């Protein structure tokens, strides 16, 4: 299988505190990988390193064989890496449709037009409409993003990611803070993402049933280090994971 993302000896320290250390990862194309670990294990920091929000203290990151360690967030996005955020990260004063259209504009490389191009904008808006349907947000095109319910904001977050047409999707806790009733809808959206063979997905998630259901492979982080990796059924049986993460209680849901 083709390796799409690889990290070598990746480390990040804040002051004296090593948040991430010695991470050697290989993510295979088309795979659905989940990252689990207790709070503070360094999951989001790892994502921030992968997507370029943080610069690693040491180590290198390769995307499709290319060293991207020093590339900016924007440059990585243009290469085909997209991410969603744990804390909802949208444009509050724009409508739902305009939020997605902006992402479509970026995807169609419409960067520096000095004058309005109605034809282009209409095409982008049509594309955005389609994505809106894919994430079950239709009927909310003209609602200002800040007025959406929390669950809908999470869907919008994924819609914007989708609009970028990334090959590698980094999903940071897509179900963070949403109510139980809204989980199935988000889960369905993620399943649809997974069914697209073009997509390689890395997911951070706390809901273990979801992780076990979706993942081809699970990576367990503990204190910033890679504790274990393997197929879901291997991970459940792994003693180290049981003691470190699940605290000896299988499938305990943590925060």
């Amino acid at each position, binding site marked *: 299988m083709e390796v799409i993302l690889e990290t070598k000896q990746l480390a990040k320290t804040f002051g004296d505190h090593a948040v991430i250390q010695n991470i050697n990862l290989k993510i295979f194309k088309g795979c659905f990988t989940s990252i689990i670990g207790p709070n503070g294990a360094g999951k989001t920091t790892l994502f921030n390193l992968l997507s370029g929000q943080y610069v690693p203290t040491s180590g290198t990151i390769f995307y499709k064989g290319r060293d991207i360690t020093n590339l900016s*967030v924007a*440059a990585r*996005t243009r290469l085909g890496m997209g991410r969603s955020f744990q804390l909802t*990260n*949208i*444009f509050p004063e724009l409508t739902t449709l305009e939020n997605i259209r*902006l992402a479509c504009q970026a*995807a169609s490389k419409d960067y520096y037009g*000095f004058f*309005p191009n109605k034809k282009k904008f209409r095409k982008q808006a049509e594309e955005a409409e389609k994505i809106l349907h894919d994430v079950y947000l239709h009927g909310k095109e003209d609602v200002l993003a800040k007025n959406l319910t929390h669950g809908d904001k999470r869907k919008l977050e994924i819609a914007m990611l989708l609009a970028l047409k990334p090959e590698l999707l980094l999903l940071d806790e897509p179900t963070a803070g949403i109510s139980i009733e809204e989980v199935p809808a988000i889960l369905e959206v993620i399943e649809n993402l997974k069914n697209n063979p073009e997509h390689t997905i890395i997911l951070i998630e706390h809901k273990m049933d979801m992780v076990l259901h979706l993942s081809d492979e699970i990576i367990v982080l503990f204190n910033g280090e890679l504790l274990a990796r393997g197929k879901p059924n291997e991970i459940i049986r792994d003693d180290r994971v049981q003691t470190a993460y699940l605290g000896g209680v299988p499938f305990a849901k943590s925060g």
Partner: protein
Amino acid sequence: MLAAKLNRIYGYSGVIILLLLLIFPFTNDSRSMLILLTQVFIFGIFAMSYDLLLGYTGIVSFGHCLFFGIGAYSTGLVLNTFATSISMFFLGICLGFLLATVVSYIIGMLSLRLQSHFYAMLTLGFSELFLVIAEKWRSVTHGGDGFTFRAPAFLQDRLFVYFFALASMVMIFILLRLFTNSSIGKVLRAISQNEARVQALGFTVLHYKVIASIVAGIIASYSGALYAITLRFVDPSVFSIEMTLDALLMTMIGGVGTLIGPILGSGVVEFLQHYLSQLGSQFPIFERWTLFLGLLYIVVILGFPKGIVGMFQELSKRDVKESKNYRKSA
């Protein structure tokens, strides 16, 4: 749709006001009024350029007068040093554009990758620097007293200058409207709301901010050139912090994040300045007329943070809501 209807009403009233402004000089021969309105147009252009930064991109500038002054001095100096002709007038404007582009590019590249207050401080620093240069480099700038110069013949006619300023304002309004609705304009608006997300969509935010800074600089320099040509006189006060504050307050009063707002704000501030200072001859307290402007600013910021335009938008929204409720109950 009621909102669309209201928009059309605003559009029509804009056209009517424009027509009134076109026939005004022929129905009224008050010279001071003509000059006052010309000032309103010029500062309307200046305030629009400021709002491109503040309202559309979310960049605060404390030294926007820098570009205004560059435009004023370039035009004044070129006309004073070389021949007084139309081509020299345009050369002066172009020189202003060039300088404004270079200076705003340098300031932008230095500071816009950092947080927004670095841009504010750096523009303030540069404007003070240019103020000192204008005062001290006597052989070129004639020092603190400034200098008078002759304007090309066609620009000596007050009436022509009036129409020239009005046409400039309308043209820049249209150009900026196109610009703010373009691909770049849409990204700018997004940057003002959530810069990190724009970056994560694959746009290089720095480029956009620098473009906004350059466009605003060029337009401010154009308004400075017009200002110089109406007075036929330039002095270092064009680089003073009061100029920047005027632009800021016109934008705040008119409505941040709109183009018509700064023009309205310019009208309010210029007319108030004019009438309040006139009242000074009757009531001594009005000799300190800036006091009253200060009070007005406080009232606007506390009571109407979205300015005149924002107030109208709120009203039309309320109308739309009410009509919807009405339809439901009917």
